[in-house]
């Protein structure tokens, strides 16, 4: 049995997050693992929560369908906090992830701030194995 039963994916709806989620779902199909899309609510997220939850549910279902993973093995989780903090907690219950997957670039403009980026922070602090999936150049999504 694979030691990877649960894969947590940082998900903010960006191109990088969608790419990372597809990679994680492909892996989950091979490993018969489940995937949890983790979205960090942040301080400003309270005003559009209904839309956020609807987007997450739709995205999770669409990604599962596209990759052939049993939809019952895909779920989403909204976490309090910034993306880095939320994913650092993903190794603990209720998610209990064995693997964390993130895109190299999210919504934020972090190209000029490597120390502040979620992926770099996770690489430094995560106690759970981490995969950083390169974000394709905008416009080339799906080319691979």
């Amino acid at each position, binding site marked *: 049995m694979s030691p990877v039963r649960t894969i947590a994916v940082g998900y903010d709806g960006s191109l990088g997050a969608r790419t990372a989620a597809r990679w994680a779902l492909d892996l989950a199909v091979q490993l018969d693992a489940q995937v949890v899309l983790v979205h960090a609510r942040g301080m400003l997220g309270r005003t559009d929560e209904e839309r956020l939850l609807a987007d997450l549910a739709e995205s999770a279902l669409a990604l599962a369908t596209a990759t052939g993973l049993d939809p019952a093995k895909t779920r989403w989780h909204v976490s309090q906090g910034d993306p880095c903090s939320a994913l650092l907690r993903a190794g603990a219950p209720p998610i209990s992830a064995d693997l964390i997957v993130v895109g190299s670039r999210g919504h934020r403009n972090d190209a000029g701030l490597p120390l502040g980026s979620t992926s770099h*922070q996770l690489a430094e602090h995560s106690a759970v194995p981490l995969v950083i999936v390169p974000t394709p150049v905008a416009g080339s999504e799906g080319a691979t």
Partner: protein
Amino acid sequence: MTKLIVGGPLAAPEHQRAGHPERPSRVEAAMAGVDDLHLGSDLEAVVGTPATLEQLSRVHSSAYLSELGAFCRSGGGDLDPDTYATPASFDAARAAVGAGLAAVDALAAAGEGVAFVAARPPGHHAPGDRAMGFCLLNNIAVAAAELVARGERVLIVDWDVHHGNGTQEVFWDDPSVLFVSTHQWPLYPGTGAATEVGGPHALGLTVNVPLDPGSTGDSVRAGLDELAAPAIDAFDPTWVLVSAGFDAHRADPMADLALSSGDFADLALVVRDLAPRPGRLALFLEGGYDLEAVRGSVGAVLGALLGVRRAVEQPTSGSGAASVARAVAERAAVLARLSDAGRTTGTGP
């Protein structure tokens, strides 16, 4: 009358983004609350100079400071989904830290009165190595670190509605700082459980009081009495710094606690009594996004500390003690477990 030393005011209009709730008018509202007290010559304002890299490096990594400065100089942008920077933000943040340091210095020199740092951007979410939660540099942490470098024992009380994760992280294993936070839970940033009690060299020197949504002022006071008081008594601080956010006010749009300005006045008297003597209490503006609530609460807090009689909202009560009782039990359990482990392994205090 007791003297008030204001650090700033620094509204930092060069650091703002249209529509963002962390905005210059917050400092203007806070200063309106100060003005309502009509302090006259009992008010002294000190701006200071921007914090030096040496001062900031007591809290923040030099790599982060270098990157943040470069990011701002290159035009700024989004630091995280909540936090922005403009080309002038690094300088504004250094100035805010500097105002806090100047206020603490002025207070130490005066040997009486209280200080209130009316500057932004706020700081308590910023750990040593990143920006988050509207915060770039941790104002109160740098001031506390400066005091620690002078041999002081510093109590930090954080009554912002959000957990002061950055400050907690900075002083997690520092036996010279006792960090106490009351905050709504669950809420951003997701940290601040009662089971977070400090590192091996500072076991018990982090005290978290997570409160259910809707909690009233009596719950906050009970949390300080039942969870924090024993640790504070044992710590015996020589200075008291307060992360004074006002977003736990019932009118604030960012959260769901139910405090009034009268509750903040009561909390101010609690922290005043924790200071070892006059001239050792400084408050730093953190959150608070309803401008009238900020104005009224700042006036209530400083009025209570300075002995200025004025009408404030009645303190609130009635939300029950369940969250505090839960926190007391969780903290006691984890402290007992860690203490036993320390005795076994020799890594405890």
